[in-house]
């Protein structure tokens, strides 16, 4: 064997080796990312009483459906009721947020007026503010407005989102300004330009904001914890959190089935609308 062929062989085997290492590491992190939810799924879809340490794979469809059924028909702190509340709250918040932030972004992105930069920086400064700072006053405002245990109490305080404003502005800045001139020549009003020209072109931004805001509303825990005292108004976060720490196997099964059900909406959204979340975050991250 000449030294050059030996070198070639060792070079090729090193190539193979590094390729294998790359795949192993990349797949390892896929496992890390999905394992907690996969594990929850496996525990739920296994016969009751099997030690949780051995449940890497689901083994019984019927057992799973029984546990899910028990959770769905639970009378106290029902997850279906909670899902309904959370859906309505999230939908209200998303609708309000998309409206007010897109309207403001329309102005910030496409027009010039005195005070524009100051107002925009003021809005963006809220991005770094810890939510804990406004928690107590918001609670007092909610009391004054009789908003405890209401959907508007859950939804309205979070509507003026600086991140949503930022995403809309980034998007609208990319739209050609000739559209506005064309609109005003056609006699469209200022609001008409927003409604008939800009918004129909901003579908991608609307979806990005809506998907992100919905997932966030679904995940919100501390604000519902503060303003909801009536268990019939509990959000999914409060119902799921009430199951944390169960120890005996019957209650563990029940808790795991509750977690699995409460993870379904964000997962479904991610599977179908992943593109919008990823696009939105990648671009705002780069420009921010």
């Amino acid at each position, binding site marked *: 064997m000449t030294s050059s062929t030996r070198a070639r062989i060792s070079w090729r085997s090193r190539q193979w080796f590094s390729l294998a290492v790359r795949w192993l590491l990349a797949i390892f992190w896929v496992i890390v990312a999905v394992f907690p939810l996969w594990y929850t799924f496996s525990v739920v879809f296994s016969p009751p009483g099997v030690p949780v340490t051995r449940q890497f794979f689901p083994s019984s469809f019927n057992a799973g459906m029984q546990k899910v059924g028990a959770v769905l028909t639970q009378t106290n702190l029902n997850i279906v009721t909670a899902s309904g509340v959370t859906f309505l709250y999230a939908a209200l918040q998303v609708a309000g947020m998309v409206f007010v932030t897109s309207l403001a972004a329309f102005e910030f992105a496409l027009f010039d007026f005195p005070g524009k930069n100051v*107002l925009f920086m003021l809005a963006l400064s809220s991005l*770094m503010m*810890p939510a*804990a700072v406004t928690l107590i*006053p918001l609670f007092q405002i909610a009391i004054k407005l009789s908003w405890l245990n209401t959907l508007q109490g859950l939804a309205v305080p*979070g509507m*003026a989102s600086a991140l949503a404003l930022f995403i809309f502005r980034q998007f609208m800045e990319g739209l050609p300004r000739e559209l506005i001139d064309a609109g005003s020549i056609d006699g469209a009003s200022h609001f008409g330009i927003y409604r008939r020209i800009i918004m129909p072109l901003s579908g991608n931004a609307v979806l990005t904001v809506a998907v992100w805001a919905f997932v966030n509303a679904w995940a919100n825990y501390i604000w519902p*914890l503060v303003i909801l005292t009536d268990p019939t108004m509990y959000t999914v976060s409060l119902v799921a959190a009430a199951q944390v720490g169960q120890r005996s196997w019957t209650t563990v099964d029940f808790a795991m089935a509750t977690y699995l059900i409460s993870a379904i909406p964000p997962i479904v959204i*991610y599977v179908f609308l992943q593109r919008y979340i990823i696009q939105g975050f990648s671009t705002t991250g780069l420009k921010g």
Partner: protein
Amino acid sequence: MKNLSDSKVALFLSRYAKHYVLLLPFFILFAAFYLYPLIYSIVISLTKWDGIRPPEFIDIQNYTRIVGTPRFSTSMTNLGRFVLIVVPVGVTLALLLALLVDRFTPRWQKFFRGMYFFPVIIPMFLSAAIFRYLLTPRVGMIPIALEVLGIGGINWLNDPTYMVPAVALVDMWRAIGFNFLLLFAGIKAIPLEYFEAAQVDGASRFQQIIHITIPQLEPVLFLVVVNGFIGALQTFDIPWLLSLSTFVNYGGRRNGMLFPVMEIYISAWGRQDFGGASAFAVILLAITLVITAIQFAWRSKRLAD
């Protein structure tokens, strides 16, 4: 004169009023649910207030009182340890993953990106709830896996030394996915010509990473670090649920999982000490501002050099 200024106002209004009208819905909500509460918090922090009787002005006594409590120092120490794990480890691992995924073909890049970002869409209350089982001594998957690697016997949920690392672990499961996405998008935005030129000059892959990728990623790295700090200061869901906290009993054994926002929540709604809770919130706000200012100053100094 009067006419002139009137017409000036009229001109101003006719030209700009329409813009302010459309900004109004956003800024009404912004003022009512953000600016006003912010000021209200600072005012309340200077009063003795149980949420029922009228607040009583007591100067900065809330600040001097709470800073001396062991719960304040414990929660701040826990926060400090948490940040020291989450920011360096979370950013470094995310950067390594981004560099790793960059080596695959576009189809696989898309696949890995989708999978790595998955934890970000899982609500934190759920990851805390599930990890509570995964971390349980002896029967949880994480202690079992560590036992195999020879690092057995750690009580993640009850040993004060490991309780902050446990919170950090759960937080990073999610945060790494988020950081990864931003860093990966940053790598994709670097012009390919830079790498081609470096290859012509005979630079190794490692040299390219050190001399091209990382300097080009600086703005994104900066964003990820700032964001990591701000996010860490707000930590609540994960330690609250991992430690099975309630109004009666919170923070876990020897307050090993007590975090500032938990202490704020408890002092306000558990002990009706709204003044003290607001003072703590304002301290948190001040820390956020100082850290952000330092980071920006550091960055502009580096850019100037």
